[in-house]
């Protein structure tokens, strides 16, 4: 290498780093949060996950994946009390494309599991994509071993589903809804479905409990279904006119950032929502200062 080539290379490297500083968005291959608007939810989901690095960044070949949608309440899918089956199916598809060895789909519903899984359309969607759907009827010690959460303030010990503890990747697939006592139920709140505890009692210290369970169990990828958000009388909903159509899918590796973006869609300040603020305090993720990218398709 002669001097001219050396100078060229040095300058080019310098320009590259300077450009990274000045135009951070244009040159990144992965963002912290990807927001995709579009009526084709299947495409939107794929695009949103691609924005945050693609599914192969999260799911390595041979991994056991747990996809945890929100199947909390027995309601037809058009009332949006549950995650859109199309989003669930797409994510399961992507996991298998990334050569996941097994994909489990389950939740611990508030209502009857059988009715809820079938009526939400998620059972059929997940099974059609090849995932194994688990019914959670009992909360025995065998299925829900106890864990200790280091650094927790309120929920120091809890029980978590065995399949989640034994999995390599947890994909959190919430639906964005209004919630009376937690204000919003999005990604962090969705993890209440992995426990075998008596969740009603968590409501006595809800924000602490939600942030503590997120401290204990990390969602590696969060994909929020904000296609048709429930703005009133959540989380059960029950009327189409409580919904607001946004056609948005949010993906992030950081559940707190994803929730903060979703809170913005509801017109709320994420720092004022207890568990999101606590999530930042406890070091689960970033409430602000993340780099997001919006795409319209």
């Amino acid at each position, binding site marked *: 290498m002669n001097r001219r080539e050396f100078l060229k290379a040095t300058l080019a490297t310098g320009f590259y780093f300077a450009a990274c500083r000045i135009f951070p968005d244009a040159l990144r291959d992965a963002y912290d949060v990807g927001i995709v608007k579009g009526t084709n939810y299947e495409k939107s989901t794929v695009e949103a996950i691609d924005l945050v690095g693609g599914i192969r960044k999260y799911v390595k070949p041979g991994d056991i994946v747990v996809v945890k949608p929100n199947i909390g309440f027995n309601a037809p899918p058009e009332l949006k009390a549950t995650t859109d089956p199309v989003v669930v199916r797409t994510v399961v598809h992507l996991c298998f494309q990334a050569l996941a060895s097994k994909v489990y789909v389950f939740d611990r519903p508030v209502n009857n599991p*059988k*009715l809820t899984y079938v009526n939400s359309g998620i059972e059929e969607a997940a099974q059609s994509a090849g995932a194994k759907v688990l019914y959670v009827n009992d909360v025995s010690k065998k299925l829900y071993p106890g864990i200790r959460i280091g650094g927790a303030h309120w929920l120091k010990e809890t029980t978590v589903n065995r399949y989640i503890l034994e999995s390599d990747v947890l994909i959190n697939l919430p639906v964005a809804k209004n919630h009376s006592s937690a204000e919003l139920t999005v990604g962090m709140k969705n993890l209440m479905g992995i426990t075998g505890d008596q969740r*009603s009692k968590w409501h006595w210290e809800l924000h602490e409990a939600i942030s503590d369970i997120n401290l204990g169990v990390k969602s590696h990828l969060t994909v929020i279904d904000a296609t048709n958000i429930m703005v009133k009388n959540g*989380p*059960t909903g029950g009327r189409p006119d409580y919904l607001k159509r946004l056609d948005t899918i949010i993906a992030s590796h950081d559940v707190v950032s994803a929730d903060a973006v979703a809170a913005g869609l509801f017109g709320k300040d994420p720092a004022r929502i207890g568990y999101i603020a606590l999530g930042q305090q406890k070091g689960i993720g970033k409430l602000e200062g993340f780099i997001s990218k919006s795409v319209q398709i």
Partner: protein
Amino acid sequence: MHNARVLKIIRISMQIAFFGLFLWVFLRSLNPFMSTENPFLKYDLLVFLTHLNLRWQYLLPIAGILVLTVILGRFFCGWVCPLGSVIDLMDFILKPLRKINPWAKYLLSFELKLVHTPPAWFLLGAVVVTAFFTPPLLQYLHPNVWIIRIFSLSSLGLVFLGLLVLMSLHSRRFWCITICPLGALYGLLATLPGLRLSINECSACGRCSSCPMKAAQYRERKVLHHQCTLCFDFEGRCPVKGFRYGQTKQTTDTIPNPSRRRFLQQGGILAGGIAAGALFTVIDTRLTSSLVGHRSEGSVQTRLIRPPGVTGVSTESKFAERCLRCFQCVRSCPNEIIKITGTGFGFDSLFTPNVEFDQYGCDYNCQVCQLVCPNYAIPLQTLQEKQHTKMGLARIHNGLCVVYANDTNCLVCEEVCPVPEKAVKYYERTKVVDGEEVVLRYPYVEPHLCIGCGICQALCPAFPKAIVVHRAHTA
């Protein structure tokens, strides 16, 4: 008769087919997405007679069974009845046991006396009369009710199965001959002229006394039409092939003549049943009216919560009257919240379904119990109607609720309330707790919105439950 073997094979395959139909319907009813009404109870002549479901969908099949019974004889018991098939199936085990049963001989002579004038007729009369009033005796005697109870593995059904085994240990179809009122009804129809079995030739060998219904009376050279279930089992037994299935002759060539006295006895026992049933109803009505007020007003006071639709659309007395206590709803409820009422709630409520909300609530989008009820005791509504029908009313006990008593935010009841407008609402108050100002959200129930589904009660974290659904008394 040369083609009796063919008829016997057809009979057995029909029994298998109808028992398979029963099993298929029963297994389907366990899945909340495939629930089917039980056709054996829905299109039942006795249930129709006692409850008069005047819908054309019912009338056609029931009229069909009626006409077929008059033409063919008491075919239902031997060809269709699932309980009869169970009894026949059990006989593979019980037949060898019966041979060593020392009591069978004595009971046989007793049974042979009962064959002509079975007490089932008495029960039939009583059942038909009492059915117009609550509570119907039918529920304790109807074979198609019992078979559902047996297959739902309820303790009552298993006790009955034990009794059935005891009866069959003495004689195979003891239940059908002496007790079953449905069989008695078909037997009564079979006494009318039509195609019947008769003895043409007889060598008095007595082999036909193995008849499970004890219908073949070789000494009198006649077949008791009200007992013969057309099983065509005599083939291969009668050495002279003397049985003939065809049109009954009115001529009395049987020896000796059917006595007039027996006819009077038969009529008398039926009338006696009717009289006893009527007497029972009168006493029952008097007794209960002195206890809870006049019944016909539909204001029977009970604190039991009924399955959805009963308290809103129907009335308690109508429910107690129509409910066959078949336990189908108990078995089908996906949340298993429908329980069987035991003693302590009056004779009217004995074995009726009632709802308990300690584990689960009544799902907002589920109406399985309404779909499976064969007699519409739980009225069949559309899902929208069901979602607006009150089962009861939730009440918050301020002394137990953690928000009121412990100044802790909770609001689970509001969160899980499935009513779109939220029947549990809340108001906010700022309160100083331990020197710190907190915003407390106090829940309260909106009575005109609450449907009493009990989901809030099932999930209330307080112990004992701070929100409890009570039966809403409309009267």
